[in-house]
């Protein structure tokens, strides 16, 4: 009982009153105006398809991965998209370990609906063999620090990681044209996903005083506010999803007003995301040139990257587990590389190479071996075949 009381340290009455009173004079505790966003920064990981978003003090990390699977029966020509959320008690003591709680599920659903139902991702381009093999895109969203407005931060992180994700190119070969060849990134440049538009989530907070509306509520404001609405829009002003799950009633004209505001904000955020992605892509392109010209530079930039395939062979790996699954088809690949170069540099190179390729499956660990399940299945006559 006491433990429970200690854990749920709540806002004092003073803070609650103050937050509302200050809002009456259009002031927020962190010095923002009611309709201002917090500082947004987007960082990208070394891996393609990983992004970390910091919104004020809220930090969310997102990682995109892809895997070849059999499509759903009712949609044989479309790749799939799934979103997984992880709310660790690390980020907020109120998150419970274990099964995802209600808020984690809701957050996943808001982002999922925004991306999927509005057809933001061209899923048809993810199809390789109709009714047999498509790419399954998986977005993992981890909350690292909760300082309010997780939805917006998570949504931006998901978009940023989708924009930087690269999947290996595939082509059909063999006598009957049914053999799938997955080209390792060294051979063919991996492909980005096709995104038609960027649905950006913008969250509003409502208070018991009907006239108060805030944008991007902080942790403390979330504790005080009595209603919340997340509108997901793209820069063109198309509404892609709205989530106002009950709570306090709001007049319809206020909702329309909020949507118009959200449209403007969505434009700003889209620009920010695009800027960050472009910057990252430029850097990435530069790195690539460097890597090809001088192996030493790779070493420098690859230090933080996860050592991928190397550990399979050297055996002293720290994250061997998830790469084990790749072994069957990667081995040949690595052998080739081994022959051409040596030592640390080569390892990194290989790592860089295999990463794009393995980026997907690497986070499927914990499940059954995905390759035995989908690639080597009887359906596919031809097993994976590297052309290295």
């Amino acid at each position, binding site marked *: 009982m*006491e433990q429970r*009381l*200690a854990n*749920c*340290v*709540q*806002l*004092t*009455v*003073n*803070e*609650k*009153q*103050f937050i509302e*009173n*200050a809002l009456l*004079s259009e*002031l*927020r*505790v*962190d*010095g923002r105006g009611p309709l201002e966003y917090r500082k947004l920064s987007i960082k990208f990981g070394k891996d393609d398809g990983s992004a970390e978003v910091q919104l004020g003090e809220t930090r969310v990390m997102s990682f995109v991965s892809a895997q070849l699977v059999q499509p759903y029966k009712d949609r044989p020509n479309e790749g799939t998209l799934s979103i997984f959320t992880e709310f660790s008690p690390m980020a907020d003591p109120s998150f419970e370990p274990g099964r995802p709680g209600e808020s984690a599920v809701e957050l996943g659903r808001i982002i999922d609906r925004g991306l999927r139902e509005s057809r933001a991702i061209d899923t048809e381009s993810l199809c390789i063999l109709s009714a047999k093999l498509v790419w399954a895109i998986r977005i993992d969203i981890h909350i690292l620090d909760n300082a309010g407005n997780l939805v917006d931060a998570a949504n931006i992180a998901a978009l940023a990681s989708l924009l930087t994700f690269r999947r290996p190119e595939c082509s059909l070969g063999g006598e009957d044209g049914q053999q799938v060849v997955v080209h390792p990134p060294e051979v063919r440049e991996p492909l980005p996903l096709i995104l038609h538009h960027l649905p950006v989530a913008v969250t509003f907070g409502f208070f018991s005083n009907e006239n108060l509306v805030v944008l991007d509520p902080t942790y403390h404001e979330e504790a005080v506010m009595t209603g919340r609405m997340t509108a997901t829009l793209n820069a063109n002003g198309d509404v892609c999803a709205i989530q106002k799950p009950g709570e306090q009633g709001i007049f319809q004209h206020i909702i329309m007003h909020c949507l118009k505001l959200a449209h403007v904000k969505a434009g700003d955020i889209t620009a920010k995301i695009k800027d960050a992605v472009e910057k990252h892509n430029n850097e990435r392109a530069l790195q690539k040139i460097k890597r090809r010209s001088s192996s030493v530079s790779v070493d420098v930039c690859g230090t933080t990257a996860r050592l991928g395939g190397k550990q399979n062979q050297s055996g002293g790996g720290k994250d061997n587990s998830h790469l084990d699954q790749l072994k069957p088809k990667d081995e040949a690949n690595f052998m080739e590389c081994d022959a051409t170069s040596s030592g640390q540099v080569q390892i990194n190179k290989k790592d860089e190479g295999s990463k794009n390729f393995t980026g997907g499956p690497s986070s499927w660990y914990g499940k059954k071996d995905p390759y035995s399940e989908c690639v080597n299945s009887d359906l596919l006559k031809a097993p994976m075949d590297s052309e290295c």
Partner: protein
Amino acid sequence: MESKLSGSATNLVDQLVYPGDVVLDLSSMTNQTIKLGGGLRQDSDVISVMKAGRLRFSKPNKYWVESSQKRYVPHAEDSVLGIVVDSRSDNFLVDIKGPAIAFLPVLAFEGGTRRNIPKFEVGALLYVRVVKANPGMNPELSCTDASGKAGEFGALKEGYMFECSTGLSRMLLSSPTCPVLDTLGKKLSFEIAVGLNGRVWVNASSPSTTIIVANALINSEPLSGVQQKIMAEKLLQRVQ
């Protein structure tokens, strides 16, 4: 290490010390009684450090380690800001950011009797004094000073409370008045209550003043005295 030991402990005073550092060697000291405060431990005949921070010494013989944390370790006679989390028939349960919930007896008020028990709703903010802080027991609080007078203690109405590190609240309480408060106080009028447990309450006539003061204080933590002054002045200029 040896050289440190051979010298007196004073060369470590006001220096940063880390867990495991030996501060004093009792064997080399001649029959001197010393008093140990938080973060120090007697290990046979040496005194070693248990937590990182600055070693402090006060005459004649007190030593302790001062550090800045987000949580608070209750200590008798500290003035703290507590939040009421529940009320029982004989105690209010108050959260003081410590390892255990603190008890505030319903009679621990000036002239408190069974008849006039104050009523606090859950979430009320109180300025209280720690009376007892024994390990293994819930700390006990009081809303009176040592002489039984209410003084400044009691519920804080309105205003805004923010949480900070214990280091910052100690800085705000230091004398002479810390530069940031000094600078702000010359231009703005506000009330402030600082709890040693890393909670600060600010109240002013207008919410904007409160927000300015609160943010200035939060930002001043890593700054030196001069920097604090500059920061506060800049802030005031921007406001005016």
